[in-house]
């Protein structure tokens, strides 16, 4: 798998703990200690999760050596949001074709009676 930004974002999100961390950060910035609190995992483990989130551009960390508070970075999620739309287009596009096909069947039906199968 390539390491393009989207893949990084997706693999960062493919973990329930990291998603929970993001959910927490959606309510405001937090320190590593605060983030670790709800989880039954060690601080180093939380730090590893934070590193993954940071390299995916989903969070930013303060530069004050001691606290390094984490904040949510909306840019990473914004790109996902932009890209969710194509999925809707996949189905919408299919349903457009469904509509056209129904019109075609109707036209054919006028000649062949009610049977719609080919």
């Amino acid at each position, binding site marked *: *798998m390539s390491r393009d930004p*989207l*893949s990084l*974002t*997706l*693999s960062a*999100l*493919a973990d*329930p*703990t990291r*998603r*929970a961390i*993001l*959910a*927490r950060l*959606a*309510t405001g910035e937090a320190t590593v200690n605060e983030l670790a609190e*709800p*989880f039954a995992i060690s601080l180093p483990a939380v730090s590893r999760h934070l590193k993954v989130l940071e390299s995916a551009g989903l969070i930013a960390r303060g530069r004050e050596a001691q606290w390094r508070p984490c904040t949510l970075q909306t840019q990473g*999620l914004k790109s*996902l*949001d932009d*890209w*969710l*739309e*194509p*999925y*809707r*287009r*996949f*189905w*919408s*596009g*299919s*349903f*457009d*074709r*469904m*509509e*056209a*096909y*129904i*019109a*075609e*069947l*109707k036209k054919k039906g006028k000649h062949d009676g009610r049977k*719609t*199968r*080919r």
Partner: protein
Amino acid sequence: MAARLADDELLITRTFDAPASTVFALWSDAEHMKHWMGPEGFTCPDVEMDFRVGGAYRAMIESEEYGESWFGGVYREIVRDRRLVFTFAWDSGPSGGVETVVTITLEERHGKTTQTFHQKPFRNAERRDSHVGGWTSAFVKLAAYAAQIANVKEYTS
């Protein structure tokens, strides 16, 4: 966009100028499905389905630009002309093999049929109930849903 995906579900409603039995046939008959599956620019040359509860389906859409894309799943609920529930997963891509659940409901009125298409991640409820809990932010749920369906990027521009 956040509003329409507020509960991490994709919802598309369409009204077709046809009775529910016709719309249902488009989902339940492989030959019919080949005529409409995939957006403009794609063809769907290959559909196989074992249309019964517990039966599987498998299909492929194809375009010059993106090549072949396979997907499939299992039928979970079938109420003729009214309701259809099946799992849906792409074969490959960043989240290939990740299951979603599609629910189609049909409502016929005066010879026209309103189709409600509804898709959500299969494992969502499980995750929601898991120990992490508390991911109430629609923002994050949206992102998680996007991760589930990641591979779509491959099929559309």
